[in-house]
């Protein structure tokens, strides 16, 4: 019994998290290891397949009321890991599955790390994505372990690192291959094997066969020397700081605090470093940004569940109509999920383009080493490209992604219903046409549902599912199940013009057009919106969506909602379309796009166009800040109105939809979180001021007024 094996397994959860209870148990076990003379070393391993430690318990942090409490939590963690680090008996962390956040900090406090090469094995410090920092020694240990640039990269991006990469970076010492079938299940045996190898390592360390201080290579020596120069380090801090400011516009405090903590440790010694880490951790935990990001995290988890239950029959054969960007994009995220996918178009050219898009998507994954060329080929074997309806009698679901025209959609639904089996679901991918209007042509409206994907489908996480009064629960359950398989974050909303996402976006775009008409140029408009936290500026967004689409939507929704959706003149957009300025796809929109060039210039030809539609700005509502709030308040008001009208199921889905589908500033956590944090009364006050100038475009909806009246009313508890 020279090697003690510590197996972690939280009986109440699918994953292990570092909770107070677990920490206490670890300390207890660790004391035993130290006290037992027969034990010379220890192995730390999780019995859960696919998870080492997924991170610290977020609830533990959220339960704290003051930053001092959180700082204390951090310091307790630091102390525990310091004891592990200084343990006279070597401890080997055997990692299979996610080793994130506090889990990673635990692992790097151990003397040695062995990890499986399983696809599920990922290491990382995702705290920054929750507006926090690695608060249990991470900011202090990582720079020493993987170098200053590597550590910044890990902590500032929060990205997951696969086992191979972790080995190269020096984050783990040894890798173990996952095993296939044997005398036990592959998962079980792989963990056992990992444990066996880790035990060998532990013995090797005790018997000095494995040395913990590696001989440094030439490169390492040079790197260490360079990093030893204070001036070089200062340059790095400056550089990283600059990058962070550029990316975050200073709206996210966590990255800056991470840099600060690392710097404190490196420049003023470990005592200051650990103290800075703990204090900064405490401060960050109390910020609204962290609160917003944690809210989004919980929301995302909630939107990855199917609240409609298990569908009666799983979708095994899916047919997609239209091989355009959308259709092919949907095929791309479906075909590698074990669903046989038919991609149908009307022309060979259209179909080939779509097939190439799917191929390219998979091929790019090979370049990133996410899959092998063999996996690409076998995945593509599940994709059938065709021009006719053959095989549709086997389809469990059809998703149409044809041109946004009600007449074409009606023709298609009739054609399809003539060939599909009775159980088959007909999903329509539209961004604005009401589903009930499309379903009007259907013989079985209970099987009709809207599935609004966002472009590019393989990158955008959101799927907005739209149900009509007639859509059956099983149809919805099935659509959600397919979306979840496709890896989407899903909101299910009620039917109506523009559903939820497009409806929120439309007034904001109308306002953006007005802002342009008032003489703000597109670059400035973009700067104002990104400065508020939108990842993409309003003018760029319009170009990306397509000016023609924007014009179409503005006109349609304008008709549906009346003057409230006014603001900018729709003719601005229409004239742009007439002149061929359809946005990025046509090479010109608000900007001019030159292939191969990343930078873009304002389209010089829209100057005279805007001149023609020029409006005189009212100085009382035209400061930079006012312009920002004019854009945002219309978005937020519309979102709240969607909740008021029952289009939205709840504020959580509203926030997730806005952030993941439309790029609402994540640091604000979504429109509903924003109202809670900013204060409904303050928002209403601003809107009233704008209302005086612009009229009903800024009239706050009833629900927002209710919240403004009663400050106890909150969308999120």
């Amino acid at each position, binding site marked *: 019994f020279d090697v003690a094996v510590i197996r972690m397994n939280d009986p109440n959860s699918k994953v292990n998290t570092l909770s107070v209870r677990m920490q206490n148990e670890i300390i207890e076990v660790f004391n035993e290891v130290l006290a037992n003379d027969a034990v010379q070393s220890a192995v730390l391993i999780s019995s859960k397949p696919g998870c080492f430690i997924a991170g610290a318990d977020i609830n533990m942090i959220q339960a704290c009321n003051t930053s001092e409490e959180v700082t204390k939590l951090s310091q307790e963690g630091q102390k525990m890991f310091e004891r592990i680090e200084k343990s006279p008996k070597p401890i080997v962390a055997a990692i299979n599955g996610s080793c994130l956040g506090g889990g990673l900090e635990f692992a790097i406090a151990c003397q040695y790390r062995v990890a499986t090469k399983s696809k599920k094995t990922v290491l990382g410090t995702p705290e920054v994505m929750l507006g926090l920092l690695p608060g249990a020694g991470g900011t202090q240990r990582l720079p020493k372990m993987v170098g200053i640039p590597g550590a910044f990269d890990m902590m500032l991006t929060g990205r997951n690192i696969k086992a191979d990469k972790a080995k190269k970076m020096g984050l783990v010492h040894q890798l173990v291959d*996952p095993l*296939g079938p044997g*005398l036990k*299940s592959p998962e079980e045996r792989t963990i056992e094997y990992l444990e066996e190898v880790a035990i060998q390592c532990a013995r090797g360390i005790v018997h000095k066969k494995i040395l913990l201080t590696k001989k440094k290579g030439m490169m390492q020596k040079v790197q260490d020397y360079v990093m030893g120069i204070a001036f070089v380090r200062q340059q790095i801090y400056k550089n990283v700081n600059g990058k962070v400011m550029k990316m975050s516009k200073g709206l996210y405090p966590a990255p800056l605090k991470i840099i600060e903590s690392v710097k404190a440790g490196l420049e003023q010694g470990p005592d200051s470093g650990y103290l800075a880490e703990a204090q900064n951790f405490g401060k960050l935990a109390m910020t609204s940004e962290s609160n917003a990001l944690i809210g989004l995290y919980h929301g995302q988890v909630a939107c990855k569940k199917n609240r409609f239950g298990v569908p009666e029959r799983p979708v095994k054969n899916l047919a997609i109509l239209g091989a355009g960007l959308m259709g092919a994009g949907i095929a791309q995220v479906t075909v590698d999920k074990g669903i046989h996918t038919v991609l149908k178009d009307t022309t060979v050219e259209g179909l080939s383009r779509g097939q190439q898009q799917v191929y390219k998507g998979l091929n790019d994954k090979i370049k990133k080493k996410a899959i092998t060329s063999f996996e690409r080929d076998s995945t593509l074997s599940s994709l059938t490209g065709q021009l006719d309806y053959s095989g549709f009698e086997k389809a469990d679901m059809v998703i149409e992604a044809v041109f946004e025209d009600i007449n074409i959609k009606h023709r298609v639904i009739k054609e399809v219903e003539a060939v599909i089996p009775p159980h088959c679901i007909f999903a329509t991918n539209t961004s604005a046409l009401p589903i009930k209007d499309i379903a009007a042509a259907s013989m079985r409206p209970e099987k009709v549902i809207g599935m609004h994907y966002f472009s590019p489908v393989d990158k955008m996480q959101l799927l907005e599912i739209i149900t009509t009064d007639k859509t059956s629960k099983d149809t919805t359950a099935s659509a959600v199940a397919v979306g979840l398989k496709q890896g989407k974050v899903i909101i299910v909303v009620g039917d109506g013009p523009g559903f939820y996402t497009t409806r929120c976006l439309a007034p904001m775009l109308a306002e953006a057009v007005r802002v342009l008409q008032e003489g703000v140029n597109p670059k400035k408009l973009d700067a104002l919106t990104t400065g508020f936290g939108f990842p993409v500026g309003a003018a760029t967004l319009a170009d990306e969506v397509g000016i023609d689409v924007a014009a179409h939507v503005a006109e349609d929704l304008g008709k549906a909602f009346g003057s409230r959706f006014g603001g900018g003149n729709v003719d601005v957009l229409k004239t742009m379309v007439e002149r061929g300025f359809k946005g990025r796809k046509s090479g010109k929109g608000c900007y001019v796009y030159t292939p191969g060039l990343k930078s873009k210039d304002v389209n010089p030809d829209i100057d005279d166009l805007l001149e023609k539609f020029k409006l005189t700005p009212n100085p009382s509502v035209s400061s930079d800040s006012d312009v920002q709030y004019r854009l945002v308040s219309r978005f937020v008001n519309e979102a709240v109105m969607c909740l008021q009208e029952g289009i939205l199921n709840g504020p959580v889905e509203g926030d997730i939809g806005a952030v993941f589908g439309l790029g609402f500033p994540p640091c604000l956590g979504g429109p509903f979180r924003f109202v809670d944090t900013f204060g409904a009364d303050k928002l209403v006050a601003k809107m009233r001021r704008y209302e005086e100038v612009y009229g009903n475009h800024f009239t706050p909806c009833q629900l927002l007024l209710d919240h403004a009246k009663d400050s106890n009313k909150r969308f999120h508890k």
Partner: protein
Amino acid sequence: KPVISTGSEHYFPFNAEWSSKGRELERFQTKSKKTLAKPGVKNIVLVEGVRTPFLLSGTTYADLMPHDLARAALQGLLHKTSLPKDAVDYIIYGTVIQEVKTSNVAREASLGAGFSDKIPSHTVTMACISSNVAMTTGVGLITAGQCDTIVAGGVEFMSDVPIRHSRKMRKTMLALNRAKTLGQRLSLIGSIRMAHLTPELPAVAEFSTAETMGHSADRLAAAFGVTRLEQDEFALRSHTLAKQAQDAGLLSDVISFKVPGRDTVAKDNGIRPSSMEQLAKLKPAFIKPHGTVTAANSSFLTDGASAVLIMSEEKALAMGYKPKAYLRDFVFVSQDPKDQLLLGPAYGTPKVLARAGLTMDDIDVFEFHEAFAGQIMANLKALDSDWFAQTYMGRKVKVGAPAMEKFNLWGGSLSLGHPFGATGCRLVTTVAHRLLKEGGQYGLVAACAAGGQGHAMVIEAYPQ
């Protein structure tokens, strides 16, 4: 005698009692079936089987070409059987790494061996079970009534392998072929860069998974909990038994071969019984540092060729031959090339036994292809596991592992060598020879192959 840890004495039947006639007779009486002959189905017999000595690649055969080796095996077969050169209906050869100049190596070898040029011949490939495919193709032709007399064989020549120009260079060279003007040619030549000159070696890795076979074998051994010690013991057993068989003159399928410009070769040269201590010194070859598969417990790169004469029983008897064995039921299996790459024998054995209506106990002689000691041990453990049988093979119970006192008693691929394309015929001939020597009735061949495939065949002794 090497020092062996607990429980493995039975691997070393040095004072073998297994060949005592008394025990064999006992076994005979308890067979599930008296014979595997089926009414209305032609009996197909193995008349003779030969092979060149199997040599470590890069040794005495180094300057030959693959068809030279195959030719030697064919000539050896002709010599041993006194078969008239036009009495064969069809010649089939198996090979894995093809020499591009002789891609139908069967044809080149048969012409060179002096067979009539009227005999058609073709080449097949299925990794390490290529010559098994050659034989079973022959069996099929006879069963179908197309042929009566087949020569099947296999050849592998690892002393020379096709190393290609890079794809970019090949593309340039092919474009040069089509270039019409001097200017075009010069510009193409000018486009050649240093990177174009990097050669392309034949892949050692599985194409579908990019994993080398040794790596997969190491993972397989780990999955079945096969220890390094077990593997080294098995490797030592293979070498020890091969040496004994060689010394006792039991490897009568080996023909001597006068290599042009070199000496006459008459013996396999890869048999090296060493000691457990020495084996233990080797470092893992594939998974480092904790792997268990080493160079010593893996089969080595080998040059060699084999050939067998297969006939319908009637024809063999009519031509005055005394057949050695019946070739009976066979199966080919395949499974996941990633995690079950080398489990062919575990899947093939129960399947072929079921086909033949036999049980494990009915088999007197086992000859399994030894790709890696760890792979053999994993297959034996898989055969002996109810859980594996139920979970992966859809069987209610395991068939059980073969008794070691019947298993690969004259050495195996680990010690004799493993010329990929040629091993199958060696296994079948060895079963026939062992049945004759040991007096058993049924023998079983099983082998794994790249691609996650496998083969198993039941062989019945020809009544003497």
